[in-house]
């Protein structure tokens, strides 16, 4: 048994509500962190995981206060320390890497200087020792050419490199415990995989204990030795990572794992009903009661304690956990098969579409053309069939949203045409489109917080398209709104609510309802589930699929998440730097032979399984601009064959699977390379 570094005992943290009631958001949390161990804390947003992690470094957010319990770090209670005492510990003994730490670097100071500052603050080294240490740290986080890196500014680094610098700064004080709050959330798939790999390496190499907080079980699975699952402020399951992920014996964890789309399976994951209860709303019984399919009357009245199961070495908070022991086989199976109802008719055609963000020069403005030899998006040819779901995948900056905006008329195309229904060309100027075309194409955005006007009620939000397109008013308008709400499984009483009174999933449902209010032919979905929790994501995906099957809508579905795309799409188009790499029926794109970029993306997918490690075959640095000529992927391609990749645009090749790949490597050869 190795030494315990920090132990949390019966910790409850809460706040005083406006009505003066004491509301706890962490309830009776106890756990131990051992030396050299990485503990993953997982839970949906609002489950209290950040609050717990912060308390573990003696920090309580403004407005909150500890109700009871302690956080013992090396035999001292952090929560009883003065801020002077805490200062000595933070950064030196316990360091933290918050979300977006990379972006939070001071923009006008050189990287080396910022690390030096951390060293000065947290160590007693002199100048020459520090200089040596800086290049040591930069080396340790595997930044390329550490000597020159120290003299660069944050903005000269990629997102992944910035995150590495943040890791280096956190390591400056040689901490015993490293807290990471969603350190890879918001990074690209490949970057995420690289940063996780780095963290795993550092944990092994330095023996630092880590607490890794995330909503993403895929990321947690890659780094954790032990996993703590939080729900509504309580620990509901805790144990060795492999046990938790492969034999989850708590219904919440079980459901959570089932709701994650997996690369190996097509079709939609099972969704969990409902959402997490608000703090203070649970009076008696199990906090998971409302959403649990094992719940019985006993659970309604009594709240289960955390129970230790010896043979599994896990703690579980559920009366009926025995029913889940040895149920793990089911984890991979119960997946709704979806029907592909695409018809042969094409509704939307993108023909040689190029889009540029370059500013028009004066003369070009007069001639109303855009002269950009190297536009952001180039030569996109996609024919979209009625009723199908076509996905556009790629890392951030690959031009997915740009293409969607052009289809919606929000962005002018440079070249090419967008044709709608019977090859009618849609104007690239929104103002020139006729109202019926505007109605026919609707958009759903990533973040419902941004896409719903915070000052409108749900009723006002939904009445906008109804009034605009169908001139509805009075009773009829109201009836239509209620119908729409019903379609997205929301009750009538939501009409008078403001967005801030809704949960993330509910907000996104309202956004979906607003899109469907127009009775559209095509809906453009821009990362619509990326801002949602996993369990909610599955529900929204299922809802979208259901609506589409009922109404025959066509989806253009943009996402960076290959597993989500696999679950919902009929066809997939892979984009890199605004150029198509591969396109084909979804099951074939996920099979080899693949375009080398698709291969890299597939390799970087994080599965919630400790036995499936991501394959890191390419660097995670994306160029700022697409290359002038040749293959768009030449800069990062692990299979690059030579000069031809730099000079000539690769040809399209059709594989026997039916997916088209754009690469200079012969497709059969590609297949044998990828075996």
């Amino acid at each position, binding site marked *: 048994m190795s030494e315990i570094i920090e132990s949390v005992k019966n910790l409850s943290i809460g706040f005083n509500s406006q009505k003066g009631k004491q509301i706890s958001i962490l309830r009776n949390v106890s756990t131990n962190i051992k030396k050299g161990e990485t503990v993953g804390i997982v839970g949906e947003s609002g489950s209290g995981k950040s609050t717990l992690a912060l308390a573990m470094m003696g920090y309580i957010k403004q407005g909150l206060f500890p109700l009871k319990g302690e956080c013992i770090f090396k035999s001292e209670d952090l929560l009883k320390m003065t801020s002077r005492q805490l200062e000595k510990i933070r950064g030196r003994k316990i360091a933290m890497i918050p979300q977006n730490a990379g972006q939070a670097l001071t923009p006008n100071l050189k990287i080396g200087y910022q690390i030096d500052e951390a060293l000065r603050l947290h160590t007693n080294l002199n100048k020459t020792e520090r200089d040596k240490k800086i290049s040591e740290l930069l080396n340790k986080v595997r930044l390329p050419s550490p000597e020159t890196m120290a003299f660069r500014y944050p903005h000269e680094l990629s997102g992944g490199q910035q995150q590495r610098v943040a890791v280096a700064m956190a390591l400056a004080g040689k901490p015993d415990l490293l807290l990471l709050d969603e350190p890879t959330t918001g990074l690209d798939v490949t970057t995420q995989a690289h940063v996780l790999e780095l963290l795993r390496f550092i944990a092994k190499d330095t023996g630092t204990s880590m607490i890794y907080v995330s909503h993403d079980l895929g990321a947690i699975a890659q780094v954790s030795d032990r996993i703590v699952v939080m729900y509504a402020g309580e620990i509901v399951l805790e144990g060795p990572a492999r046990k938790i992920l492969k034999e989850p014996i708590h219904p919440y964890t079980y459901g959570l794992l089932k709701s994650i789309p997996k690369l190996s399976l097509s079709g939609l994951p099972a969704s969990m009903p409902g959402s997490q209860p608000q703090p203070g709303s649970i009076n008696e019984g199990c906090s998971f009661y409302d959403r649990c399919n094992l719940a019985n009357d006993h659970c309604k009245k009594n709240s289960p304690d955390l129970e230790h199961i010896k043979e599994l070495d896990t703690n579980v908070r559920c009366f009926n956990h025995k029913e889940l022991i040895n149920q793990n086989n089911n984890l991979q199976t119960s997946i709704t098969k979806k029907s592909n109802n695409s018809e042969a008719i094409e509704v939307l055609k993108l023909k040689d579409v190029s889009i540029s963000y370059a500013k028009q020069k004066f003369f070009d403005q007069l001639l109303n053309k855009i002269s950009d030899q190297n536009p952001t998006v180039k030569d996109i040819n996609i024919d979209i069939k009625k009723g199908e779901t076509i996905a556009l995948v790629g890392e951030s900056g690959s031009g997915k949203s740009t293409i969607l905006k052009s289809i*919606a008329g929000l962005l002018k195309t440079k070249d090419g045409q967008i044709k709608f229904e019977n090859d009618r060309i849609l104007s690239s100027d929104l103002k020139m489109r006729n109202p019926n075309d505007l109605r026919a194409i609707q958009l759903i955005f990533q973040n419902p917080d941004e896409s719903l*006007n915070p*000052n409108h009620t749900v009723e006002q939000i939904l009445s906008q398209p109804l009034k605009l397109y169908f001139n509805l008013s009075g009773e009829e308008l109201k009836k239509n709104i209620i119908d729409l709400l019903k379609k997205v499984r929301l009750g009538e009483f939501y009409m008078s609510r403001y967005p801030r009174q809704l949960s993330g999933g509910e907000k996104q449902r309202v956004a979906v309802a607003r899109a469907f209010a127009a009775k559209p032919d095509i809906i453009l979905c821009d990362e619509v589930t990326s801002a949602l929790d996993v369990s909610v994501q599955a529900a929204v995906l299922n809802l979208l699929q259901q609506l589409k099957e009922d109404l025959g809508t066509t989806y253009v579905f943009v996402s960076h998440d290959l597993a989500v795309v696999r679950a919902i799409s009929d066809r997939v188009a892979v984009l890199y730097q605004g150029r198509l790499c591969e396109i084909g029926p979804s099951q074939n794109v996920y099979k080899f032979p693949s375009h080398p970029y698709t291969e890299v993306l597939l390799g970087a997918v994080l599965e919630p399984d400790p036995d499936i490690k991501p394959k890191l075959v390419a660097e995670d640095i994306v160029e700022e601009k697409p290359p002038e000529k040749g293959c768009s992927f030449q800069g990062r391609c692990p299979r690059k064959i030579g000069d031809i990749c730099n000079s000539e645009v690769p040809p399209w090749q059709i594989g026997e699977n039916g997916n088209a790949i754009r690469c200079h490597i012969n497709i059969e050869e590609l297949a044998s390379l990828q075996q």
Partner: protein
Amino acid sequence: MESNLIIKDKQKNKLEKAFEILKTMASKPSGLIGLTIVLFHVVLALTSPYIAPYDYKAISPNTMLLAPSAEHWFGTDSLGRDVFTRTILGGRTALTVTFFGSLIALLWGGLLGIFCGLVGGKIDDVVMRVVDAFLSIPWILAMLLIVSLLGTSTEVLIPALGFFYGKGIVRVARAATHDVIAKDFIVSARARGHSNMSIIWNEIIPNVRDAILVEGAMRWSWMLLGFSSLSFLGFGVSPPTPDWGLMISNARGLMSFAYWSVIAPIVGLSSLIIGINLTADAFAKALGIDRSTKAPV
């Protein structure tokens, strides 16, 4: 019938919301003090003609420069007029002129700011340059010019003050609009094909209204000071109408031996300015707007 109910419900919601905001404002001592002062001044301005004990223009050589007493609570001025009477009446013109002046400032400043924020580009650049150019003219000089050309009637003062104090609002409205138009709900409305007017009215105004209102409230207190300065210089209200600025100006030479005639209007004016300031601050806080980072322009 039913939709009627909904509309009623909405109105109730608005009223409730206003009440809620008032309550939040009054929950902090500074907000409560501010609100009380402003309310006091408004009530006073409305009722003072009826409660004033003397005729404000009654000159009397027998009662010149009397010290405060039971008959003349605040004493009398150099023409023998009752200072108490003149003080409680002295805020009426200032309040009215600046209130309507602020409304005008809000209206044109807000609309121009929203317009600039929305169209952006060249037009925005040009308009903001012009606004900046105006900002750099000392307003009092410009006001003096206007007043000496067009006279000192309220019909001139209200729009002139409204114009000069609207410049700051343009900036605030423009910045707020800038923040809002980047949001997806605006993009969404545009993609649906709503007209610009509908987007301004339905999507932008509800989201920038608070910031503009707060700025307007702040401008109001600045305008009061400005208006009183004009009166002080003799370009505001014409005698014998009682006005604080004018009273201060007339009595300032007597400071050393008849302090009462100058203290009362000073207290009146400064308390109102402080009151409006505190109220505007509390209003901003109740709406969740952080003014601390924005220096007054």
